[in-house]
């Protein structure tokens, strides 16, 4: 049987078509085939969250989904949500609050935080911690990350009033 597949999908608003080995996972596809290297690869078995990508509006592990499965899907990476300014407030808050040091985990945290705030505009600190529990950060100790997310939640609530 053919071990390659033809796929067409939307990535950050652009239609792309490629022929890829069926075994290619989504995060390697965006990194190596599309040269979108903002999504990172850490553990490769679903534990760290560095590879977080949005597929059809929901965050997924880019290392646990095949590019072939994204045929026909709408995919957004950290590059896409940065350029659209969708998460510029989160990025500013992470920066100001020192919620990153090496930054390896940051794209995953930003996409995860954005999904949390879209579902729950006023999360408690415990709810924030629980929601980001699938993302590892080896540098910051999480405190500043929780602070930054909490602050943006407050800012967005104020702006909505």
């Amino acid at each position, binding site marked *: 049987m053919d071990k390659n597949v033809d796929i067409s999908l939307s990535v950050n608003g652009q239609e792309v078509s490629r022929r890829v080995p069926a075994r290619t996972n989504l995060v390697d596809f965006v990194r190596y085939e599309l040269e979108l290297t903002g999504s990172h690869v850490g553990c490769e078995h679903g534990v760290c969250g560095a590879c977080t990508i949005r597929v059809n509006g*929901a965050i997924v592990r880019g290392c646990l989904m095949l590019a072939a*499965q994204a045929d026909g899907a709408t995919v957004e990476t950290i590059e896409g949500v940065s350029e659209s300014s969708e998460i510029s407030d989160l990025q500013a808050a992470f920066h100001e609050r020192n919620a990153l040091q090496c930054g390896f985990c940051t794209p995953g945290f930003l996409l995860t935080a954005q999904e949390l705030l879209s579902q729950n505009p006023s999360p408690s600190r415990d709810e924030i911690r629980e929601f980001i529990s*699938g*993302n590892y950060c080896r540098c910051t100790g999480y405190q500043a990350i929780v602070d930054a997310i909490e602050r943006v939640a407050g800012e967005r609530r104020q702006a909505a009033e």
Partner: protein
Amino acid sequence: MKNVKPAPFAYVRAQTLDQVFDLLEQHGDDARILAGGQSLMATLNMRLSAPDVLIDINHIDGLSGIEESNGKIRIGALTRHNEVAASPIIAEQAPLIAKAMPHIAHQAIRNRGTFGGSIAFADPAAELPAVSRAVGAEFILQGRGGTRTVAANDFFLGLFETAREPNEILVAAEIPVIPANEKTAFNELARRHGDYAIIGLAAQGGVDGGAFSNMRLSFFGAGDRPIMAEAANTALEGKSYSDATVADAQAALDADLDPMDDLNGPPEMKMHLARVITARVLAELAR
């Protein structure tokens, strides 16, 4: 392309169950069903398994969704963990499942992982296999020749081993709506929220006028499969909640559980933790 981890395989996006049966018959052990991929992809990335063909069932109609009729709730095998977690039917009619859901993995994994995948994979530390025993679930398996029903109590045969035949697909689970006299409790110990449990306990049964009846204490992370604590259940029959009742149930666990040494610690530690969560669960049931 650089950086490919799994051994090469072919990928088929199945549109019908017949297509799945064809491929399972043609390829036997070398074919693997791909549901949420949240367990399978990890084993492929680590090359713990190397199938020739992956059969993606995510695009087959009718495998997903939650419905209630005639006192039974049907959960389609492809229903994502987050759909189950958000379902009002589950919250009201199968509260033990609702209590377990937040403990399963993390948001991004729950967006993809499926109810059926969790059952078919049969990880002994997973929540849903044990919960399905406590609620009295039945699983619907479909093969070329039709469907058959297997009770959760008969489904889990050993470590990652189930009563599903290699040419069958799990299509749904059916769960009885919780009877008016029954209560539920859930407790697990994990290193980090969302991680697989070190040990956990799901319980459902009657609490009539304060007395326990037909109680089902179902453990996970306590052996090679989900374990129904028959001796503890018997010890609880007709008893009211008290320190003595808790102590009797805890003592009965020696006959029920024979935990293995694993990365989390030795059997004695697991037995100790089993007694601790049993006390917590009984207190929750008595509340």
